[in-house]
């Protein structure tokens, strides 16, 4: 067994000697590598050169960035190790240099070789090929655990660091698991697109509708680009929620807890839980939760702010609401109580301790039973509240009362009941606890008892015992007909009077106005026709004269009655009657006039003859009137 062990040791030593021989021959050992052979455009690649020598310290590391890359930052850390084995001292000098290069172009590039100064010259390490691909098409690059920043004032693990754990690379002690080692993205944390480059805050609530007092859980995550170097946050401002009671669900808010990785916009991001709060709405309405913000002291980052969120808050349902329920008492509660001692003297006091247990919006006070002779003093309250299971806020709240009993006998303290709304079952429930009976011994001497205060609100009336009941009340002013009658009645009277007056005037006008000339002409013509059929020649001639005058008036608008012969002819001519016709008409009328006043009388035949001529003249006037231009008017109308 011992021989086998010795054999293994000798073989190992021999291997080590054989491996170290070339390095010793050269005096320096140089190795170089890159952290990724394929990166996306805009990402960075880190070239690391490690030089070690046992004779002289390598120094002055250099790397010329290839075209298409920009040097972002670089650093070098020399090491010196001394070992003394069996009294023999051995020195080992080392130098580790890193260059972080950002890709600016697509393509395949050669990075390196980097070189160091050694033994009066420069020694070069290996070079590596790096391919730059389009964003979103590359593979996540493996990343080695980073070391603490050498100049971190908090030392990377100081308990005084207020932002410990928020960013990778600075406090890796809090996130020992490498997020790149087999990236396992949580779909629940995925987002469509990042809210900012390199790092951003994202806030969510577990519900957007709640009742007053119902817990709404606000969660704020910090997303960090796994492929970018993270800066240090400062100037942290908490999310404002003035319309809520805010309680933390995290034991330590100074730590950010890595909760997983997520793919956001096609890229991997580390997700850390920054805040988790239970918010209890104080009132109804659309309540706002302000953003949380912090500033990251890094180029292209600056201030980061989470979303402003809104929660629609309503009152719990009125249906089945128990008496004594106070808006805001929402959660799941139970009560227990102890009363001690159970036997006291009159006007003495007992202690009642009521423990309210559960989760939700714990009420600050409890309704105490009202029993005559029992005086409840202000309680002392003690809280044991915090996060409980399933991200609920709860615990216990203990109320310690001193209760003075002023009556003797067995006093039942009754029960304390707390109606509450359970948001889980969406129903009301009542937590209750019985306080038990206390035996009170009658005091031998008269105690001062409670102070007799000046009577308040004396002479109040006695309460009523029967509801008045509702009666549907109607209002006249709600009926349009009322307003119509109100103003319509006087207006109607005025309108009726006005209309009746107008009608009366119209009738009077109609009554005073003569018949139309054509109608008169027709009537006169009929009279003439009738007259010529009778034996009275004079009467017939008078009727003929009137009929002719009426026809002339109707046809020409010229009233020739009382007009002399020439004047009548002129007027008829002016009215468009041909001269011959006009003279004929005037002659007929003259003959009628002459015959009527003839002492010898007029025979019916003469009258009939004259009537025949008259009708011809009427026709002629009518024809001439229709063929002639319209009369220009006459003053004798």
């Amino acid at each position, binding site marked *: 067994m011992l021989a086998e062990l010795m054999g293994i040791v000798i073989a190992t030593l021999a291997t080590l000697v054989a491996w170290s021989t070339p390095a010793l021959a050269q005096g320096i050992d140089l190795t170089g590598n890159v952290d990724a052979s394929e990166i996306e455009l805009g990402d960075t690649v880190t070239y690391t050169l490690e030089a070690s020598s046992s004779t002289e310290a390598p120094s002055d590391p250099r790397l010329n960035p290839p075209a298409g890359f920009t040097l972002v930052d670089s650093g070098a850390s020399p090491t010196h190790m001394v070992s003394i084995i069996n009294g023999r001292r051995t020195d080992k000098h080392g130098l580790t240099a890193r260059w972080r290069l950002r890709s600016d172009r697509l393509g395949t590039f050669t990075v390196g070789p980097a070189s160091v100064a050694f033994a009066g010259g420069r020694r070069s390490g290996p070079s590596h090929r790096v391919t730059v691909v389009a964003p979103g098409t590359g593979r996540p690059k493996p990343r080695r655990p980073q070391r603490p920043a050498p100049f971190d004032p908090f030392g990377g693990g100081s308990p005084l660091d207020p932002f410990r754990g928020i960013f990778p690379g600075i406090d890796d002690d809090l996130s020992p698991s490498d997020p790149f080692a087999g990236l396992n993205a949580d779909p629940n944390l995925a987002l469509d697109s990042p809210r900012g480059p390199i790092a951003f805050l994202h806030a969510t609530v577990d519900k957007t509708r709640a009742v007053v007092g119902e817990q709404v859980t606000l969660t704020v995550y910090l997303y960090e680009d796994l492929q970018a170097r993270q800066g240090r946050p400062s100037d942290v401002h908490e999310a404002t929620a003035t319309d809520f009671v805010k309680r933390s669900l995290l034991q330590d808010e100074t730590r950010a807890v890595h909760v997983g990785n997520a793919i956001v916009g096609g890229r991997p991001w580390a997700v850390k839980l920054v805040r988790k709060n239970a918010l209890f709405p104080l*009132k109804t*309405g659309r309540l706002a939760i302000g953003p949380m913000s912090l500033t990251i002291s890094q180029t292209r980052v600056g201030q980061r702010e989470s979303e402003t969120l809104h929660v629609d808050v309503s009152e719990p349902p*009125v249906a*089945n*609401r*128990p*008496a*004594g*329920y106070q808006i805001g008492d929402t959660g799941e509660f139970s009560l227990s109580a102890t009363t001690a001692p159970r036997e006291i003297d009159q006007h003495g006091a007992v202690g009642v301790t009521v423990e309210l247990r559960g989760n939700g919006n714990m009420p600050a006070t409890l*309704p*105490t039973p*009202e*029993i*005559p002779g029992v005086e409840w003093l202000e309680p002392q309250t003690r809280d044991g509240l915090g996060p409980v299971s399933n991200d609920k806020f709860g615990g216990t709240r203990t109320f310690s009362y001193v209760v003075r009993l002023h009556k003797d006998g067995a006093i039942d303290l009754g029960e304390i009941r707390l109606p509450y709304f359970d948001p889980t079952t969406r129903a*009301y429930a*009542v937590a209750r606890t019985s306080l038990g009976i206390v035996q009170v011994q009658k005091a031998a001497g008269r105690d001062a008892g409670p102070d007799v*205060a000046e*009577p*308040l*609100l*004396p*002479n*109040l*009336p006695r*309460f*009523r*015992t*029967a*509801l*008045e*009941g*509702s*009666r549907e*009340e109607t*209002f*006249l*002013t*709600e009926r349009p007909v*009322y307003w119509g*009658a*109100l*103003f319509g*009645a*006087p207006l*109607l*009277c*005025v309108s009726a*009077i006005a209309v009746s007056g107008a009608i009366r005037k119209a009738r009077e006008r109609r009554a005073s106005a003569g018949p139309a000339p054509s109608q008169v002409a027709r009537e006169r013509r009929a009279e003439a026709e009738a007259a010529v059929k009778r034996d009275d020649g004079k009467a017939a001639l008078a009727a003929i004269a009137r009929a002719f005058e009426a026809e002339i008036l109707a046809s020409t608008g010229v009233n020739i009655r009382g007009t002399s012969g020439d004047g009548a002819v002129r007027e008829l001519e002016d009215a468009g009657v041909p001269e011959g016709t006009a003279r004929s008409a005037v002659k007929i009328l003259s003959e009628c006039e002459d015959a009527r006043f003839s002492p010898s009388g007029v025979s019916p035949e003469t009258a009939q003859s004259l009537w025949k001529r008259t009708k011809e003249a009427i026709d002629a006037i009518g024809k001439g009137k229709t063929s002639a231009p319209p009369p220009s008017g006459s003053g004798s109308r």
Partner: protein
Amino acid sequence: MNRKLSLAALFACVALAATARADEDAPQEQMDPSALFRGAQEALAADRPGEAIAKLEALADRGIVDAVASFDRGLAYAARVRAGAEQPGDLGRAAHGFEETRELTRDPSLAADATSALTIVRSEVARRRSQAGDPVEIEHGFSLGRSIVDVLPENVWAVVALVMALALSAAIVVRRRLTLPRAKVAATTSGAIAGSLLLITSVLAWAARDARLHLREGVVVVPNARLLDGRHLAMDGVAPVPEGVRARIVEESAGFSRVVVGGADGYLPSSAVLPIAKR
């Protein structure tokens, strides 16, 4: 042995049934407004104002608007004050109950009792303000116009206006029909008077209707509330609003109510002003 077990099981069943029966009683009272009101009566009679308040408030939550319920609620709050278990705002809520009673009731005796109780409550508020050195004016009263409108009920104004309209119509007709000069003069005079009264009473009827439909009033239920300006900062030079005072609610938004109290116009938190129910 079996018999004993059977008896024990029977006893357990009876006990469970009794428990279940007792549990059923509570929801019955929670659901039934009459039972709630009866419970409140019993609590008031037994000098348990807190329980009475809880039940009467539950009654109001169920949409029961009744003058007697409001009156008893006011008495319950007053009783809690009197019992020495006063909570902030109890006097204001008592005043609110009585104001609501006056607004709702048709019973003159109940209205008189509510007025009397309101006076007692406001006297107590005035006494406390006096002790604190604050102005003691509690009831600012209404404007002249509002006072005139409130002289008669809306329907009475409406009927009077209608009568005036008929009188005016009759005067117009009579003046037209009659020929006697004296009759014409009498008709003209009557018509002028009726027309003027028609105008006035119709405006009052309309104002009463407008007040019924649009005027919102409340009672301040917070002791010494400070009126706030548009930025919701306390107004300078304005005395704190007394508890129990009646205020006109102009508008409500974002948790604040714009109110007019005794000629002062400002904002109060909505929770500080309890609206008065109307018929």
